[in-house]
């Protein structure tokens, strides 16, 4: 394996590969079956090495399992003790701290008895307080984890699973290819991208109404949609280099390579560094906090706000992945359109479906403008249903709109607005500034043909 490829593989494995690198690796893997096999074997070996060298002791595992069981069965544990079916906890020896990581690896396994003795106090406390642990967590909850993939939650230095109520002191660590989303009672949301690590901290005051929200971003990228905050209690997003005070806005905050980058999409944010330096960052502006650079707000480079095709030159657009540019059914004033390509159907309908798929490899199609609308002319024959989907890179999810009873055998114009797109999370919506990676128009009952023309994406009112 040459150095270029080796480093792509390693960066992919650790989750630090950028989009162009991912594209390059994918292209090479797709083109070379031998490379594909070598890559998979190498990844398996990396997994084995990680497994072998993970020497965390069993007591830590048990604490996490016990907390998860207590959370899942909040009253059962206490009830069993009360019923006499379980012995109450014994004497409480001092808790032994587990060995610090970072020294030379030890290949020897630690005796199970020593682990059990060392963790007896913590285990006893958890056993005795099985139900109250879960109840206290619910009482202390400051946010809810509404979505998680490949995410570890740590509390008190111990990883816990099967919990959705998040409390001050919790740490969320997202794996390289994972994601997580937490939601506060006022609807504010923070989305964590792969590789992010976030600490939930106690706010300025806790008066039962939620108090001030505080999050510390240790590394990685988060996107926040923040509801209007009480006067004097802005949400505080802290990083190693700076702090952002948020009153009610939509923003993106990244800690990468020793710098903090703030991009404000909507609203206003004050960014601070130290006691004296502060800057106000408005919607459409960004600021970077890094050593040797003054804190200043600058206009964010404009993303493509609108996008579309009329296909009139007869050429195949570079971002057309599935579909063919053809003359199509006759229509005054239009020479060409795009025809749906036949594909296997994952929707459970007829064996085949017809897809028109737009995507720009390694980039986004467009950034969602305010009051996003997707409009296009379509001709459908055979079946009456049309699915229109987008991949929202900011939310890391697909959102769909299904049009039923689409007239057949004639051109009609459809307009899909922002709020029409839905995902598996009923609360999820496309927001202004969201990076849209692809657009799919699909006829899942593919007995007939699908044609699309004059495709426009823009702010509300984008029509021909």
């Amino acid at each position, binding site marked *: 394996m040459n*150095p270029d490829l*080796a*480093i792509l593989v*390693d*960066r992919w494995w*650790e989750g630090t590969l950028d989009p162009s690198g*991912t594209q390059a*690796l*994918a292209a090479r893997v*797709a083109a070379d079956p031998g490379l*594909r096999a070598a890559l*998979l074997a*190498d*990844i*398996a*070996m990396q*997994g*084995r*090495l*990680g*497994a*072998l*060298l*993970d020497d965390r002791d*069993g*007591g830590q*595992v*048990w604490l*996490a*399992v*016990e907390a*998860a*069981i207590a959370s*899942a069965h909040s009253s059962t544990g206490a009830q069993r003790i009360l019923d006499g*079916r*379980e012995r109450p906890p014994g004497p409480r020896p001092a808790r032994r701290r587990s060995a610090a*990581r*970072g020294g*030379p690896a030890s*290949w020897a396994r630690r005796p*199970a008895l020593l*682990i*059990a003795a060392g963790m007896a106090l913590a285990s006893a406390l958890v*056993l005795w307080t099985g139900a109250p642990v879960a109840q206290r967590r619910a009482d202390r909850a400051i946010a809810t984890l509404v979505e998680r993939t*490949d*995410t*570890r939650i740590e509390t008190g230095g111990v*990883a816990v*699973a*099967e919990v959705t109520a998040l409390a001050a002191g919790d740490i969320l*660590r*997202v*794996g390289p*290819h*994972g994601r997580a989303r937490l939601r506060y009672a006022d609807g504010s949301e923070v989305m964590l991208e792969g590789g992010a690590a976030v600490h939930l901290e106690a706010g300025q005051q806790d008066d039962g109404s939620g108090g001030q929200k505080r999050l510390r971003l240790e590394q990685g990228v988060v996107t926040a949609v923040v509801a209007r905050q009480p006067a004097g209690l802005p949400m505080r997003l802290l990083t190693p280099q700076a702090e952002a005070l948020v009153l009610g806005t939509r923003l993106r905050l990244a800690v990468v390579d020793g710098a903090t980058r703030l991009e404000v999409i909507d609203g206003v944010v004050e960014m601070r560094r130290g006691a004296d330096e502060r800057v106000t960052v408005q919607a459409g502006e960004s600021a970077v906090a890094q050593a040797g650079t003054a804190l200043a707000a600058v206009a964010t480079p404009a993303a493509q706000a609108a996008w579309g095709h009329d296909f009139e030159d007869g050429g195949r657009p570079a971002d057309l992945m599935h579909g063919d540019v053809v003359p199509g059914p006759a229509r005054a004033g239009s020479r060409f359109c795009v025809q749906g390509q036949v594909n296997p159907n994952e929707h459970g309908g007829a064996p085949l479906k017809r897809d028109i798929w737009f*995507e720009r490899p390694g980039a986004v199609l467009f950034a969602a403008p305010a009051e996003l609308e997707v409009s296009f002319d379509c001709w459908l024959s055979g079946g009456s249903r049309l699915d229109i989907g987008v*991949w929202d890179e900011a939310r*890391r999810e697909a959102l769909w709109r299904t049009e039923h009873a689409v007239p057949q055998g004639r051109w009609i114009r459809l307009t899909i607005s922002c709020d029409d797109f839905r995902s598996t999370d009923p609360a999820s919506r496309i927001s202004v500034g969201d990076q849209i*990676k*692809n657009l799919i128009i699909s006829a899942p009952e593919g007995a007939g043909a699908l044609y699309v023309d004059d495709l426009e994406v823009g702010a509300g009112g984008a029509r021909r």
Partner: protein
Amino acid sequence: MDPAEAQRIDELAMDAQAGNREAFRLLVLATERDLRCYIAVHAGSRESADEALQHTYVAAFEKIAQYRSSRTFRPWLRAIARNHLVDRWRESRRFAALDGALVDGLVAAAAEDTLERDEAEQVAEAQTRRLRACLELLPEKSRQLIARRYHDGLDLDELARRFRRPARVLSVTLFRLRQTLRRCIEEREA
């Protein structure tokens, strides 16, 4: 597994079935190391492995009444873990297909396939023993590099700072070390 050990685990399982949580705790301590190894090979990341490990034990706690004492507690745990991992990889593959993440999709498909085939417990234990022995044969500096990468979890840039070598060079070195270990394991199998 040693028959006496398997019997002891079965006795703990019976106690746990009777509602003894202390017995379940001891079951966890007795089985977590091997189960963690099994899961970590198939999980793809440490975060996923932790999640799967805890999910497996919570599921085992909830289903403990279904376990039939037959000295097969470890395979029973592995089956729970395997089912969870298969479901997770299937979801990951769907996610990767939507996202166009080819490499993620390939890894997910291969992981799902490996889990479906599943190697016997004895084979997995033998592989782990061989890998441990092969690691011992590496020069000290090579073992240190492997330890920093897979025990401490350092990324390439941090490794480059610690070892004062370019990340590209370390990446190739790591790849060659992994190939060396794989060949060593295969020779010991032969």
